[in-house]
């Protein structure tokens, strides 16, 4: 028994090693959202598209939707954009917020690349994004039928992210009352 006690530090060391090794693979920039299961904070943003409607909290709810924060200066948004177009063609309810950007640049982005959004709001000051805990674009929130945030995805939406996480989640939310 006493002999076994000598093994204890080795066991602890191996446990710590496994813990650290698992930690290596984690992305430290991914922070937990404080918004989960909370209603989307009230906002009412002016339109990005001239003579179109803006985007407000009241546009959410009823059916599950994605709220995608983008900006014309954002490199990862370029990578994400073609996939957003695909989601739109599949009939996914996708709204956009042009975050900390010039409205004209945000509109030019949509005019040049295609417009995947149902509603697009211009958040030039970035305050709406800050209210939702946005730290960088692209960021996408999954909003349920009752207008509550259910999930926050940081970074570009790829086919993999959609198939493994966001797609099934939207499916589940559609089935909710």
């Amino acid at each position: 028994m006493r002999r076994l006690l000598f093994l204890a530090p080795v066991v602890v060391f191996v446990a710590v090693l496994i813990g650290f090794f698992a930690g290596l693979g984690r992305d430290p920039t991914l922070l937990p959202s404080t918004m989960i299961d909370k209603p989307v904070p009230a906002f009412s943003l002016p339109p990005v598209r001239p003579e179109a409607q803006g985007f407000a909290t009241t546009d959410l709810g009823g059916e599950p939707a994605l709220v995608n924060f983008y900006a014309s200066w954002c490199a990862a948004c370029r990578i994400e954009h073609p996939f957003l177009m695909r989601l739109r063609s599949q009939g996914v309810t996708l709204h956009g917020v042009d975050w900390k950007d010039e409205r004209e640049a945000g509109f030019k982005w949509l005019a040049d690349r295609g417009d995947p959004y149902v509603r697009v709001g211009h958040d030039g000051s970035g305050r709406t994004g800050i209210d939702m805990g946005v730290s960088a674009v692209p960021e996408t929130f999954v909003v349920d039928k009752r207008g509550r945030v259910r999930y926050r995805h940081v970074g570009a939406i790829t086919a993999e992210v959609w198939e493994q996480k966001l797609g099934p989640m939207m499916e589940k939310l559609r089935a909710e009352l």
Partner: protein
Amino acid sequence: MKRLLLIAVAAASLAGPAGAVNPDEQMADPAMEARAHKLSRDLRCVVCQNQSIDDSDAALARDLRIILRERIAAGDTDEQAVAFLVARYGSFVQLQPPMRFDTLALWFGPLAVLLAGGIGAAIYIRGRAPARSATLSAEEEAEVAELLNSDKAG
């Protein structure tokens, strides 16, 4: 020339580490500005993570500095102003983590490791073979006595 250099060095040494706070962000009231400055040194920039928003040049850090000052100008206490940001970005923004159930490991983890190590070391040291007894056996005593006596006799 030398004197000029000395003056330059002396002047440079007077300069404190400057934050990233721009003059246009600062509050008119020096007392409020001092409060905002103090708070912002303890708030983490969520973009660059190991800098405070006071140090960071990130655009979002600037927004958060301005929001902090707006809250203070609106009459928030220090706690309320910090809580405003914590509500949005989580406790992660506090460079001094608050003591809560989920931060207990953070606060007391090192102490627990030290205690565990100390207890382990104590058990190990106590468990080692006891030091050879310092008292002599009867035979050895007799031998010693004989030697001493022979010395006297000699």
